[in-house]
Structure formats: C-alpha cells, structure tokens
C-alpha cells in the first residue's frame, strides 16, 4: 500500500531521516514510536506529501508518489495540535474537504450536510456542529480533526501524536476508540507516538525509530519480547542494563554466571546484559539457584512489588507478585537468591559506535537463555 524506500531527509546539515525504508500493508495500523527528535513527524509528513525527501522514494499502491503534492495525495492527516480552522464551525471544518472539490466532483449541499452529520455522530459529536473550535475541549477537538480527515475518504490516515495533548484518562479511551474505528473502517493508518504503551496497545505493527533511523519493525509482541537492539530494549519497558564480561560462551554479571552459547567464539570482551525486572526470579537461600543479592528497598505498586537489590556492585530492579512477596517476606537487608529467567547480551564495542551493520551482527549473535 505505502512503500517508503531509502528515504533520506536533511535540514541544513542535520540528517532528520537516514535511509529509512518502510512497507505498510493495506488496512494495517502502524505506529511510529521513538523518542523526541527521532524523525517520526518528518517521516509522517513525507508520507503525507507535506515534506519531500532529499533522496529515496515513496510509493502508493505501487505508483511513485514521491513528488506528488499533498493536495493530490488523497490522504487524511491529523496534526499534533489539531490545526482546526479556528474561524469555522465544527460543521464547516468537517465539510471543508468536500466543499473545496471541483464542481464536477463536489457532492450537493444536502449530501455534504448528510455526510458531515454522519461523521460527527461517528465521532460522537452530534449537537456540537455549530460550535467553534475554541469552544471545545481537547478531546473534542481531536475528534473533529479526525472527522475532518475522514470526510474526504482518504486512502491512508496519518496521525501525528493524536492523543499527545490529552490527559491520561481521555487518552486511554480515545485510543481504544481509534482502534475500534480502524477495525470498522478498515482504513490503512499510520500514527506517531512516543508512548510505548499506546503503540503496543493500538498498533498492528510498531516501527521503532531512533536518531533518524529505524531500529526495528515488528508486531507489538515481537518488539517487546525480542528487541533487536539495545536501544529498543531500553526504550520499551523497564529493563536492567548491566555491564558484564563475556568469556568463552559465558556471561559474568558480577558473581552471577550465565550461559551465552552464541558467544562461544568470544574469548574475553566487555558486554551489556539486558534483563527485564519481571524476568528476575527471587527465592530463599537453599530453595533455588542463582547468586546472592541483598534487598535494598521494597515498594508495593498495586498488583506488583518492585524490589531493588544489590548484586555485587550492581543495583538491580526486580518485579514480583504480591503473593511471592508475602512468601519471601522481603525486607531491606535480606539476602535472597536471584536468577534471570531470560537475558540478552550485546557486545560493548558493537553498539557504542552504532552503525547499522554492527547492529545486525549483534542481533544475530545475541543469546537467549
């Protein structure tokens, strides 16, 4: 459906997008996820025709659309700050895309009115048609922007941080609603976000971006369970990044020694181990395996209990259930056994000079336990 090939975009001497390739299938909802300044908006604007790449191409349905202007691309674009026409009513905002059509293609007044009202009821804004944007709440403005974009029946819907400016509660509601809407309309969609939870919950596929490059593309499960790079590991979810040594197929994190068979060929190198807090198993001395660690701090956060431990000179964060917490009677100063259910290792040299090649190499040689 949409195919971006080797897209490069610089502003002055700054490379906002560096050789980005991305394929989006018909009917898919894709999230562009990344930290601030990683090039998400730039990529979205290039897909929408509001910005043009320095090199590379953008294909829509197989046809080259790289130089097609935004006006002729027939996409729906929802801006981060909505960009509603401030001097037009909600009705006129939504009707705009239909009213500006050439006389031949323009629906009649009655048809336009019917379509606008249909869209407004779809976004649950019936009755607000005659208000001005300044008389709406943030969530309502957001939905007007969405209705306006959908009015032209776009081939693709592009949304820039659609829920960025809303409070947590409204955000949650709106993103479920967006997902439902997407499932109903079966429209191809791309949305930008820097909220991982949002990306993982709503999208079919997630594109993780960093410094103008794509770090990983995959389903939410793939991205979360098998991060391809240290960056993705750290960006998605909580993770312990622990310096370690890798020697002949084993990784040593302080006193803890874990097998790392795919590094069997590495004689002695500095590495980093990534372990998710919920992958750390805690047990009483004598009951399980692992290394001794000392509990430093325990905090109960709703259903989970977060435990801070020291392992040698490392500080580690573990998460466990309340039940397990009660069984172990965890308290500061207590010695417990610590064993990672799974961990992933990256060689230090590889990712400090981050080039794409070295990263792919790392993904292949990393070890899953």
């Amino acid at each position, binding site marked *: 459906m949409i195919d971006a090939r080797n897209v490069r975009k610089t502003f002055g001497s700054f490379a906002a997008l560096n050789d980005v390739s991305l394929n989006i299938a018909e009917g898919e909802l894709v999230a562009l996820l990344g930290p601030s300044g990683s090039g998400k908006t730039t990529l979205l604007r290039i897909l*929408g*025709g*509001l910005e043009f790449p320095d090199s590379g191409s953008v294909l829509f349905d197989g046809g080259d659309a790289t130089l097609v*202007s*935004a*006006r*002729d*691309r*027939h*996409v*729906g*674009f929802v*801006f981060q*700050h909505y*960009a*509603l*026409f*401030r*001097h*037009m009513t909600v009705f006129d905002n939504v009707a*705009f*895309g239909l009213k*500006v*059509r050439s006389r031949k293609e323009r629906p009649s007044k009655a048809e336009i009115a019917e379509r606008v009202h249909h869209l407004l009821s779809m976004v649950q804004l019936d009755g607000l048609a005659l208000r*001005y*944007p*300044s008389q709406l709440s943030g969530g309502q403005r957001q939905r007007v922007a969405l209705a*306006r*974009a959908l*009015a*032209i029946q776009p081939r693709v819907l592009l949304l820039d941080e659609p829920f960025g400016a809303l409070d947590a509660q409204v955000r949650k509601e709106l993103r479920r609603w967006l997902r439902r809407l997407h499932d109903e309309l079966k429209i191809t969609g791309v949305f930008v976000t820097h909220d991982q939870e949002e990306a993982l919950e709503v999208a079919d596929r997630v594109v993780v971006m960093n410094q103008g490059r794509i770090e990983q593309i995959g389903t939410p499960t793939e991205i979360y369970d098998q991060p391809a790079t240290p960056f993705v590991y750290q960006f998605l979810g909580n993770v312990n990044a622990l310096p370690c040594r890798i020697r002949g197929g084993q990784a040593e994190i302080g006193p803890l020694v874990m097998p790392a068979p795919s590094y069997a060929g590495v004689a002695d190198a500095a590495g980093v181990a990534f372990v998710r807090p919920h992958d750390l198993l805690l047990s009483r001395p004598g009951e399980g395996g692992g290394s001794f660690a000392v509990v430093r701090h325990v905090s109960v956060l709703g259903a989970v209990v977060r435990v801070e431990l020291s392992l040698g000179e490392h500080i580690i964060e573990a998460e466990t259930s309340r039940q397990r917490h009660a069984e172990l009677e965890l308290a500061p100063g207590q010695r417990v056994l610590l064993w990672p259910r799974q961990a992933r290792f990256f060689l230090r040299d590889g990712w400090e000079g981050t080039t794409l090649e070295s990263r792919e190499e790392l993904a292949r040689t990393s070890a899953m336990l």
Partner: protein
Amino acid sequence: MAIAVEISAARRRSRAVSETLWVKGLLTALGVAILGLFLLLPLATVFGEAFSKGADAYFAALVDDDALAAIRLTLLVAVIAVPLNVVFGAVASWCIAKFDFRAKSLLITLIDIPFSVSPVISGLIYVLLFGLQGWFGPWLRDHDIKLIFAVPGIVLATVFVTFPFVARELIPLMESQGTEEEEAAVVLGASGWRIFWTVTVPNIKWGLLYGVLLCNARAMGEFGAVSVVSGHVRGVTNTMPLHVEILYNEYNYMAAFAVASLLALLALVTLAAKALLVWRFSREIAADARQ
C-alpha cells in the same frame, strides 16, 4: 495569638493596598495631565481656532475651491495607496511568515526602511530618481510621463511612506499562527488561492483591518515626503496637510485650522474605530490568540 497575628497581617496588607492605591492615583493623575497638555489641549486649540470666526466662516473655508481640491486629492491618494499597500503588505507577510527562504531577513529589513528613513529623504530620493535631472528623468520626459511635481509622484511617495503599516501588523500575527491550518487545508485538497481566501484571510482580518486604519491615517496625514515631490501647485498638487501649511504661511490662521480640523477629525475617527474594533471583537480576537 493566632488571631492577633492574622489581624496584624491583615492590617499590613491593607496598608500595602492603600499605599499602592495612593501611588496609582498619583500616576494616573500624572498621565492624564501629560495627555491633556500634549494631546487634548492642542486638539482643542485646533477646533477653537477653526471656529474662531463662527461656523459660517468655518464651512466657507472648507468649501473654498483650493481646499476642496486638496481634500479630493488627499482622498484620491489614500484610495490608491491604501489598497496597494494592503496587497503588498499581505503578500509580503504571507511570504515571510509562511515560507522559508534565504532573502527573508533582507526582505524584512527592506519593509522597515520607510520607518527608519526620514520621509523628507524618501521624497528627495524620488526626486533624484524621477525628477528632470534624475536618473530616469530624461527617459520619462521623452515618453511624456510626469511623475514629480504631479499626482503620480505624490501617490508613489505616499505608498512608500505607508508601506510598513500593514506588513508590520501582519507579520507577527501570521508568524504566531504558523502554517498548520494552511497545511491542513492543502491535505484536504484546497488550492492555494482558496486557502488564502478561506483560511488565511479570515484568520488575519482583525490585524489587517487595524493595519488598514493606521495606513490610511498616515496616507492622509503624510507631509514630509509629499511636500518634497508635490511642487505645491494650488488646487492641483496640494494635499490637505500641504494646504494647511500654505494657508498658515499666508497668515490665514482660521482657514488653516479649519482644514487642519478635518485631519484632527480623521485621527479621532481612526482612534474611535480602533477602540470599537477592540471592544466589539475582543472576545473573538482573544479566542484567535488562544487557539
């Protein structure tokens, strides 16, 4: 104990309030006094002198042939200069605010030139360029075009002097509004022309109107530049301000002030219109700024 502390705090607070009240009163009085001395008194004098020989003499001075010619010319100049500058100003601000290009700061500087150069100098430059001895003088003479010491010269000088008013009003406004609404309109399939009229213009209408008011007031009241290029031909190339000067130099004070009172009236109308704009549309204007 706690109550005592509260009371003394309250007393301290009320003393602070009464002190600021006192200072406020003094400052207000000072402001009004300065305003009266430098603005209202001269205004009153203008009307006082104008009516010093009665209403009949006042109206007679206004319907004098030369005075009428001056009024007509002033209106004509404003009718040409203001729309021209609205177009120039809107286009220039649109370019500056909505696009990024290299010569942008140069363009902004150019727009400001009329503000930073004395109007007399501006007039002189026109004479040097288009006068008989000027650069284009011989060419213009050969083609039988008379700019200097004629109406076209006056229009040119006025356009130049009043150029920044609209642009200066619009640039900050358009910059603060950004380009997102226009981008939204493009994506929805609107043409550039359509976007300008249905999205950009409605968003800047108050600023535009205010700029037009200021531009018009200056166009009608301009003296320096027009004085240099006009040639002061009575009934032909005299605008109202120039006519006032001539009458004054002829010791015809009453008539001079009568014509001057029209200019003063224009200023008052401009002020009133501006106040009306702010009062009538303050909510909308504030809403615009908020969005």
